[in-house]
């Protein structure tokens, strides 16, 4: 325990605490001083605040690593430059294409993309529905004298209404059911890959690859159980369904900052990497001294020399050049040339 406190990252701890406190303040404000907060959701709220604390802590530790810090700084520097609007437009397009639609996965495998898209869309929609409900930001009321119209209040302000029993009401009340179906189909597709792909079988782990899928299915199935209970069983098993669902969701929230789910937040860095490449190309390309061809941006090569040095690697040569000035092909050729020279000096080309 003492070691845990000793190794705590103070900057990350401060940022995570601010994020958690800010969330609680936003809950108080958004729910109109808890007036619209649903006490039945208190366990979910505690789990969500913990998840926000954990994610903020890990994110902060993560961006303190030299290569991540450099990418983070460069992304911000390039975004908030005189090219702000074109870069913002480009990043927004990529956000829809690569973050919300995850199209880059289709280039790895179309089935995999479909499975992941179902899974991710189900999860993101479920977040969008449950977080505002848990925080008391969205609230539904009936008005006196009218027991057929349901009013949605956003932060305490009326934001829309619908007739009970209407198709819209059916879609809205079953929002999480649709999410569960998407997640379950997606998770099953992803599981099938893990049963049949030889490469995945060789490298997968229980905690990083199987448990996340099992947990997502458990959340979905227990969630569907609640709907099944009030639709077909007259609420007779409500207690059991509600408790098992709460346990799986809270396990997910507590695990969110530590395991595989952290990649949801890391993925945003892909937008920064893209911006880095675009601005780097505009600034100029590096030419490999061996192949005489452009192979990367000058900014990238220069930054890597700095980062490798910061990490304790020194690829500088006696003649003032750097091994990292070479393209990958140039490096392979340099090794082969050195090897041939050593063999010639050894007197035998083949030993």
């Amino acid at each position, binding site marked *: 325990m003492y070691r845990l406190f000793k190794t705590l990252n103070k900057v990350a701890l401060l940022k995570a605490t601010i994020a958690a406190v800010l969330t609680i303040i936003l809950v108080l404000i958004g729910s109109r001083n808890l007036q619209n907060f649903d006490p039945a959701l208190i366990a979910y709220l505690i789990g969500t605040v913990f998840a926000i604390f954990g994610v903020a802590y890990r994110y902060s530790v993560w961006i303190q*690593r030299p*290569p*991540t810090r450099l*990418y983070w700084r460069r992304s911000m520097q390039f975004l908030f430059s005189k090219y702000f609007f074109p870069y913002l437009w480009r990043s927004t397009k990529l956000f829809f294409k*690569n973050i919300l639609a995850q199209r*880059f*996965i289709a*280039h*790895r*495998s179309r089935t995999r993309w479909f499975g992941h898209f179902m899974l991710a869309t189900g999860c993101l929609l479920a977040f969008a529905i449950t977080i505002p409900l848990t925080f008391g930001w969205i609230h539904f009321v009936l008005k006196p004298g009218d027991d057929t119209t349901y009013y949605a209040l956003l932060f305490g302000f009326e934001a829309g209404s619908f007739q009970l029993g209407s198709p819209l009401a059916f879609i809205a009340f079953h929002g999480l059911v649709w999410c569960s179906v998407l997640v379950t189909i997606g998770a099953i597709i992803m599981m099938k890959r893990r049963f049949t*792909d*030889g*490469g995945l*079988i*060789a*490298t*997968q*782990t229980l905690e990083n690859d199987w448990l996340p899928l099992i947990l997502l299915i458990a959340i979905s199935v227990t969630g569907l159980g609640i709907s099944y209970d009030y639709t077909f069983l007259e609420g007779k098993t409500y207690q059991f369904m509600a408790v098992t669902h709460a346990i799986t969701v809270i396990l997910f929230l507590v695990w969110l900052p530590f395991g*595989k789910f952290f*990649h949801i937040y*890391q993925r945003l*860095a*892909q937008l*920064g*990497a893209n911006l880095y*490449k675009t601005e780097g190309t505009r600034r100029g390309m590096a030419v490999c001294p061996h192949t005489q061809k452009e192979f*990367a941006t000058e900014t*990238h*090569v220069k930054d*890597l020399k700095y*980062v*490798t040095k910061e*990490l304790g*690697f*020194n*690829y*500088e*040569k*006696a003649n003032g050049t*750097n*091994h*990292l000035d070479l*393209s*990958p*092909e140039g*490096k*392979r*050729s*340099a*090794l*082969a040339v*050195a*090897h041939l020279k050593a*063999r010639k*000096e*050894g*007197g*035998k080309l*083949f*030993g």
Partner: protein
Amino acid sequence: MPETNYDQEMAFFVDMQRCIGCQACVMACAECETNGQESMIHVNYVDRKKSPQTTVQVCMHCEDPTCANVCPADAIHQDEFGVVHSANTSRCIGCSNCVLACPFGVPKKMEEAELMMKCNLCYDRTSAGKKPMCATVCPSQALFYGTRAEIEKMRPDSEPVNSFFFGQQEVNTKVNVMMPKGTQSLLIP
């Protein structure tokens, strides 16, 4: 990692001077299931205008891998056997840091997939006690996977070397390069 039969007695030995540029390893590499059927091995001419010399390059599986150190997404993992695995697909953000920082020029960026891929010593095979695909097909034995005793018997005048100097940086690797007898390290000027 799952249950494995990885044999730590076995090692990889490369002799670039034996490479005849036949590309058999390139074809065989694409059979490796951990690569997703993409060939990860490199065979290229060293300086085509002057010489027909070709070179072959697999991942050297560095003891302290530069690629993993410069990865901003913590996507590159080294296991307990010293095998440096291809990027974790859920984490890799396709930034190319590893591609440009690897001193041996090994990782490849799959542009459209926004993913780095590289040789992972045919982990689907080596973890099951088999040899990597490339080493099983190389006709000139530029690529050899076996025990140290086997290679010493086959190449009595050569020495397996796993220490490389790139400028001021010493890089020690799991994979060996066959050098003249008595050589301790290879200096890349």
